[in-house]
């Protein structure tokens, strides 16, 4: 009779033991599979978070004494002008973006210009000659510019400035209205030289300058003008035109240090002239709880595996003692020790196949609850913003006062008013950072991992539990049993 048949007969005839072993293996498998699925989901969540948040680094012109290209001029009135003879050029940007992992970039430089426009005056008194100065932002494209990315400005008419466009501008709707300008109209900009640009886009201001704050004319949101790089070159004439800073977005913030290291190894760029500023704070802050979960879960899986192996070994050793008679009989019949251990192993594996399979169902139930529980424990508590109600039941807040929230302001009605007419309107409460969340599902890959880990645990346990018996001679076993 073969090993498998003997194992099958034992499993099917010793139903009580088989059922008990099934539940032991089921519990073990549920924990291991839960751990594996949370670990995988946590890895996936980290990857998604990295992709969602991204990371960035800035390359800025160093105007300190460290930069041998930095120049300083002082005019007759004592005004100091700092500039570099080695700015960030298109060639430099094109070299940097050859590095793997960089998603896109946004380059800008701002310069004081005079225009033929009637601008919005600031509330800080300035010399008359500076009253008509405004900022012209030279960009490669406005869409990736920080003003638009941060949604301070929003393009409402026309198009963004795109790469390689020449002599174009994007202005605010307020400035356009004040000067009776529309898309296609031309405006004049003056610096060292004068340039004429065509308005191709008009933006609205979503986040206006704070009221009652001191602000100079050239910093007012309404006065900001965006121009293309060629226009900037024209305005400077013979001086080398370039960008003051470039922000490079990377796909994976976890790779930021590596990417920066690659960038700094670019020998065609003289890095004495620039500084690199990294920004992965948002990612690190958001990913920290997930990383803690990952560590916790990995530890959990190891502990579960060890504890499972110990428990299983103890149970099998206990049962092995009750099977000493059987072992002795097999040995007396000339059945090899390896063959006998194989039978015991096959028995556990036969039950394990079903227990591991069924753990797919139990783990799916446990995993989500456990994952979010772990995440809550590893996420630092946040203070709720005052006046913002996050949970409402049937249109009423929990304290019985209806809340209407608009633009972050909370207005309270009296209970009487509330009974008569209550319309609760909630504006979107925006979180400044992405929330870390784990959506756990047990995958086939996790189940395969479980089978590998589970089989290893079973082999170890059966081996350990069989050691005592297998060291005995057949006669010793037979005399023990008699």
């Amino acid at each position: 009779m073969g090993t498998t048949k003997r194992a099958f007969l034992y499993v099917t005839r010793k139903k009580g033991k088989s059922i008990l072993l099934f539940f032991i293996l089921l519990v073990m498998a549920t924990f291991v599979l839960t751990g594996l699925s949370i670990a995988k989901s946590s890895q996936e969540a980290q990857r998604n978070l990295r992709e969602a948040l991204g990371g960035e680094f800035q390359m800025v012109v160093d105007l300190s004494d460290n930069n041998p290209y930095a120049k300083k001029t002082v005019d007759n009135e004592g005004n100091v002008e700092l500039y570099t003879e080695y700015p960030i050029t298109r060639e430099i940007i094109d070299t940097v973006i050859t590095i793997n992992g960089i998603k896109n970039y946004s380059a800008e430089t701002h310069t004081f210009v005079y225009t033929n426009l009637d601008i919005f005056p600031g509330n800080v008194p300035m010399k008359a000659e500076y009253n008509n100065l405004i900022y012209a932002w030279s960009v490669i494209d406005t869409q990736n510019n920080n003003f638009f990315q941060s949604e301070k400005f929003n393009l409402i008419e026309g198009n963004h400035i795109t790469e390689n466009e020449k002599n174009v501008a994007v202005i605010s709707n307020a400035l356009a209205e004040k000067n009776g300008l529309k898309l296609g109209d031309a405006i004049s900009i003056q610096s060292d030289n004068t340039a004429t640009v065509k308005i191709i886009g008009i933006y609205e201001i979503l986040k206006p300058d704070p009221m009652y704050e001191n602000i100079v004319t050239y910093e007012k949101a309404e006065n900001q003008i965006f121009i293309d790089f060629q226009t900037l070159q024209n305005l400077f004439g013979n001086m080398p035109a370039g960008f003051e800073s470039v922000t490079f977005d990377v796909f994976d913030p976890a790779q930021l240090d590596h990417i920066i290291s690659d960038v700094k190894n670019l020998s065609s760029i003289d890095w004495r002239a620039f500084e690199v500023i990294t920004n992965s704070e948002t990612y690190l802050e958001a990913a920290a709880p997930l990383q803690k979960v990952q560590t916790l879960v990995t530890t959990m899986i190891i502990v579960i595996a060890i504890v499972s192996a110990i428990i299983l070994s103890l149970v099998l050793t206990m049962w092995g003692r009750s099977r000493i008679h059987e072992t002795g009989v097999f040995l007396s019949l000339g059945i090899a020790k390896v063959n006998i251990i194989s039978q015991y192993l096959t028995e556990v594996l036969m039950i394990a196949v079903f227990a591991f399979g069924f753990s797919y169902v139990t783990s799916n139930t446990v995993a989500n609850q456990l994952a979010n529980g772990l995440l809550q424990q590893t996420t630092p508590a946040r203070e709720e913003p005052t006046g913002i109600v996050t949970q409402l039941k049937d249109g009423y807040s929990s304290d019985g006062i209806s809340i209407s929230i608009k633009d972050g302001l909370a207005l309270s009605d009296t209970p009487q008013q509330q009974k008569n007419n209550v319309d609760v309107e909630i504006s979107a409460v925006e979180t400044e950072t992405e929330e870390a969340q784990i959506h756990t599902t047990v995958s086939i890959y996790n189940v395969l991992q479980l089978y590998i880990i589970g089989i290893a645990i079973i082999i170890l346990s059966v081996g350990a539990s069989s050691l005592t018996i297998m060291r005995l001679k057949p006669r010793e076993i037979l005399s023990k049993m008699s």
Partner: protein
Amino acid sequence: MAILEVNEIQYAYKNGQPVLSDINAEFEAGKMYAIIGASGSGKTTLLSLIGGLDIPQKGAILFERENILQRGLEYHRRNHVSLIFQSYNLIDYMTPIENAELTAKQNVLPILERLGLTDEEVKRNVMKLSGGQQQRVAIARALASDTPVILADEPTGNLDEDTAGGIINVLKESAHELNKCVIVVTHSNELATQADIIFQLRYGNLYTI
């Protein structure tokens, strides 16, 4: 010609107490041997050594002139000898058929039927059979494994007189009709007198009666 030879074997318990000293014996196919002796005289020890369950401290056991250690005790137990015990030593979660099939080299059903087990009994759990029936299953297992030597340790020790008589006949038939070499260790005079050759183990030595 002897199928099995015991050459000058010596054996002592772990505490140093000698139990067998310079035992010599030859066993032939087609004969039934009985080994008798007082309790503690070393009968079961001698049977265990012949059966390859233990190794003598000195001397050798030869099967067809080859030392049984040559091919290993496991091989010897599987291919040369079958053991029958007083306590039957059947596997409790198996039926008689399955027990007999454990090391069977032939169809077990005719053997079980010849030994008097019914169609219903051979499919019943072995623990639900009487002592005599269980011993028949043990003999069936020994016969089914088709080894030339059958070693029986007090095979009738737990059985009533009638049942014991039946078992003795089966063993005799195995020797005389199936040409097996049957060696029985027994306290039973009735069984011993049925043997072709009787050995007595006394003070560690084996004597032919």
